[in-house]
């Protein structure tokens, strides 16, 4: 079981709601993925009706909603989105995304840290989306974030774990769950992230842009579970040298 703040998850696959052809496909894919945490953009919520065509079915499905601040370019906009989502959805969980760069949607570390600090003080459960920066992740932990969400590669790129060396450091050091977010494009990449010791992965584009999102959702569920089990079981030894001599500890037999 994965625990974030006061909530427990059986599934370590988190999914998104963007880029699907239809709301029904999204719901079916989320169902097949067995994901229990689904992120959705606050900017997509209809302020007039308090809903849109995906919100009610999602709520009815029983998954936990993780509103995100996608589209926010600075602290002020992110705080506005967070306050709005708390009011509309009645949740204090927020996936903090601040990316002033419209081309690659690279997260802004300075604005993110400051927004995280304020939101934690205000009682939010903050899950910040960040570059795979080990120092930034530690500082986000310090201000009270419930998890960190470093990227594997640019959002929607399906490039996989381009940031692997830094993800390893983050995973080694973190006291809060590490959720690899963005860039995971294939189930095998999700497995690899889990084998490295990530606590969960968030996948959206790879499922939504697949020819068959429902099957792909199911594949990711299996992949994440396999990676997690492999991590727990412990990977077998990889050896690059023979071990038939004792040059370093031979003195103990003298």
């Amino acid at each position, binding site marked *: 079981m994965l625990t974030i703040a006061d909530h427990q998850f059986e599934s370590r696959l988190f999914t998104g709601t963007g880029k699907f052809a239809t709301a029904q496909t999204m719901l079916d894919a989320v169902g097949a993925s067995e994901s229990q945490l689904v992120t959705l953009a606050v900017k997509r919520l209809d302020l007039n009706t308090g809903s849109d065509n995906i919100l009610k079915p999602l709520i009815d499905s029983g998954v936990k909603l993780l509103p995100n601040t996608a589209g926010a370019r600075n602290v002020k906009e992110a705080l506005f989105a967070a306050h709005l989502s708390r009011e509309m959805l009645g949740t204090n969980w927020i996936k903090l995304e601040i990316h002033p760069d419209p081309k690659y949607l690279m997260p802004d570390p300075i604005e993110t840290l400051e927004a995280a600090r304020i939101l934690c003080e205000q009682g939010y459960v903050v899950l910040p989306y960040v570059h795979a920066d080990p120092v930034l992740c*530690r500082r986000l932990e310090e201000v009270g974030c419930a998890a960190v969400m470093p990227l594997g590669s640019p959002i929607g790129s399906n490039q996989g774990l381009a940031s692997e060396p830094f993800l*390893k450091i983050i*995973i*080694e*050091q*973190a*006291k809060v769950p590490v959720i690899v977010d963005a860039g995971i494009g294939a189930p095998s990449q999700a497995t690899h992230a889990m084998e*490295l*010791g990530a606590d969960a992965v968030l996948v959206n584009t790879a499922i939504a842009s697949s020819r068959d999102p429902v099957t792909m959702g199911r594949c990711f569920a299996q992949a994440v579970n396999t990676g997690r089990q492999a991590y727990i*079981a*412990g*990977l*077998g*030894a*990889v050896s690059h*040298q023979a*071990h038939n*001599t*004792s040059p*370093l*500890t031979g*003195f*103990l037999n003298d």
Partner: protein
Amino acid sequence: MSFVDVFKKLSRSELKLRLYSSTAADVECAMQKPSGDVDSLLALLSPAAEPFLEQMAQQAVALTRQRFGASIGMYIPLYLSNLCANECDYCGFTMSNKIKRKTLTDSEIKDEMRSIKSMGYDSILLVSGEHESKVGVPYFKQVLPLITEQFSHVAMEVQPLEEQDYRELVAEGLDAVMLYQETYNPVTYSEHHTRGKKKDFGYRLESPDRVARAGVDKIGLGVLLGLDDWRLDALLMGHHLDYMEKTYWRSRYSISLPRLRPCTGGVTPKVELTDKGLVQMICAFRLFNQQLEISLSTRETPKLRDNLFTLGVTNVSAGSSTQPGGYVEPNTELDQFEISDERSPQVVANAMLERGLNPVWKDWESGW
């Protein structure tokens, strides 16, 4: 929140059971896992890891050279005082021991420093017995400016202090604090610490938290190997280290692995840690933590030390005296414990050079 809260949640009996029931497969898995996994440390410290010692050593050396290169930091202790207000049955400074007591004056400190500087040292470890009223913060604040004039790196191994005290000493130039728990078994701890403030297990256990919060650059943890089951003590020190590194990540960390040595009125080790066990411990910690500094004192024999230099240790003392004033006027009557490697620093340095290692005498500038 301090390590005391974490410690309370750890079950000694469960950890011990897991240590002694680890299998070869557990060890093989642990050697593949990324560093920083305390469950892997458990397997690497277990009896099941003994057949893997050479493989662990190969990995440990590669990791050490990758992180630290061929450099070995040289340091030397300066014993400021052997006054002590504690009763600890393994230590020559224990309160009831009828030995001559001495606290160095400013002038004697200067003489000692002159002698130490002539050996080439620039990194110094200030040591004292634990006597708060006579060798307390005012004394340390008085002597630190003298020391920092001469040495670019200053560490302390004295009684635990309050956070504010550490802050004031940092302002005077203190760079590192070594504070050893001795044993992580509260029952054994109380058997060996029968009188004085040191008797308070919990206060000592949360001391590294205070040191870190005060902004001390480097923090040393350690256990006195022989007081209790060394595998379990080492594992709990690993948990402590893990907590400290994750909570106070701006600090550097070192460990020291002193084996219980004969001393005036001292106890016989309850559990013997063999040379093989010591090597296993060093390798296990290196695989667990690649950035960790590992200190080796003169308690060990020259032959063993020469072999350990190449095996993952990063900081070494040589030419040490464990008595106040001992560099100018040697007098073994005042020693804290017996030294095994009595070679001069230069001879030890030459032994390192012969093994392709580089003794580094200066490696710190606190102004940066």
